[in-house]
């Protein structure tokens, strides 16, 4: 089992999306592509997961959507940008992850980190 179970990563989809949106406003496919590239294709986010995260975070006020033309092609797309409260939420999630990682790390066997199970 080398793939990530969706239950485990669910809580951190928001973190990934917010991290990418902090750099610049972006749209659905670009974000999913960046996640795929940054994780060296170890994690591919499903379209429905991504859209669900967008709507949830927009409802919570962490991101805002706006419609814009893509440079060149003239195709209208929905872009998302991060809000101030989104940035705060991101920092909070980062702290949460550091703590989570620290806690879970205590229970991970060190001798055979990439065992062939």
């Amino acid at each position, binding site marked *: 089992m080398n793939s990530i179970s969706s239950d485990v990563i669910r809580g951190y989809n928001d973190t990934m999306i917010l991290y990418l949106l902090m750099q610049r406003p972006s749209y659905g496919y670009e974000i999913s592509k960046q996640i795929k590239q940054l994780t060296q294709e170890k994690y591919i986010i499903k379209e429905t997961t991504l859209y*669900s995260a967008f709507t949830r975070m927009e409802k919570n006020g962490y991101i805002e959507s706006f419609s814009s033309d893509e440079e060149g092609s003239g195709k209208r797309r929905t872009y998302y940008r991060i809000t101030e409260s989104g940035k705060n939420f991101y920092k909070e999630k980062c702290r949460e992850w550091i703590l989570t990682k620290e806690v879970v790390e205590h229970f991970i066997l060190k001798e055979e980190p990439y065992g062939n199970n």
Partner: protein
Amino acid sequence: METIRNYLETMFSSLPHTPEVLRAKNELWQMMEDKYNELRNEGISDNEAVGTVISEFGNLDELSEDLGIHSVVTHTTPINSRKVSLEECKQYLKARASFGFKIALGVLLCIISPIGATLTDGFSSSIYEAFGACFLIICVAAAVVLFVSSPIIMHRYDFLKQEPCTIDFSTTHYINDQKERYRPTYALLLTIGIVLCILSFLPAAILDTLNLKLGRLSIDNISGTLLFIFVAIGVFMIVLTSMINSSYDTLLKLNDATTVGGNFVSTQHPEKQYISKTAATIMSVYWTTVTCIYLSISFLTFDWHLTWIIWPIASVIHAVLNSTLKK
């Protein structure tokens, strides 16, 4: 691209048309389109790109809370239906084709069984008579073996009829594709088969005018034999091709409108809905009854030159019944 659009439409087909749902559909479509185009630009084949996009789409259940469609999504999920894989479907189609071939061969053997007798009819020697009888018995015996043995293999696929089964979207698409590809062959074989049956009298008619004699074989011997052979080949083609064609429909009918894979058959050839069960029964036996009446009257009166009038009358009555009994 068309496939992806169809997939998305099918996924959303059971959902209410609220602004949230429409927005979700548009956004998801945008993402899928972007991904498809990029994969294509990377030089990936159409089929593969469609496969990747669909496999990475995810599950609408995830959106149910955001869209307020939770009840709809959970409601339409089919209960405990058996998933039939693409591999199983391919095996089934293969098995059905060989089953169809065996049954068609059996029918062919039955039809040609009398040719031993017709060929030697009129010969005085009893050896020839014995040959005719032997040929008939061997043919019928072989046909019976085929009829009895071949359905046993098909029992493995009884679950398709007995259990609720579903096939996923890509499998449905594959089968529909195969069916489309088979369509020209089906039409060709069916036409040739029917033409052969109709033309079966032709050799007799031609030989009769030529009035030739081949050794001890009289014209009656040859023309009778040719008639059976023509009909046998014609029926063989019709039976084989119809059985192959119906195997695609069997698989495509597994899904109904509520399943994700979509139902290609019912939307293309909607089953007729009658006002009551009795009406449906009457309509299902209509043409057989008419045929029976036609043959009975014709044979009793031998007025074949008049009795054909039954057919135009019957079709007018059929049209009237159809429009009054349909929902």
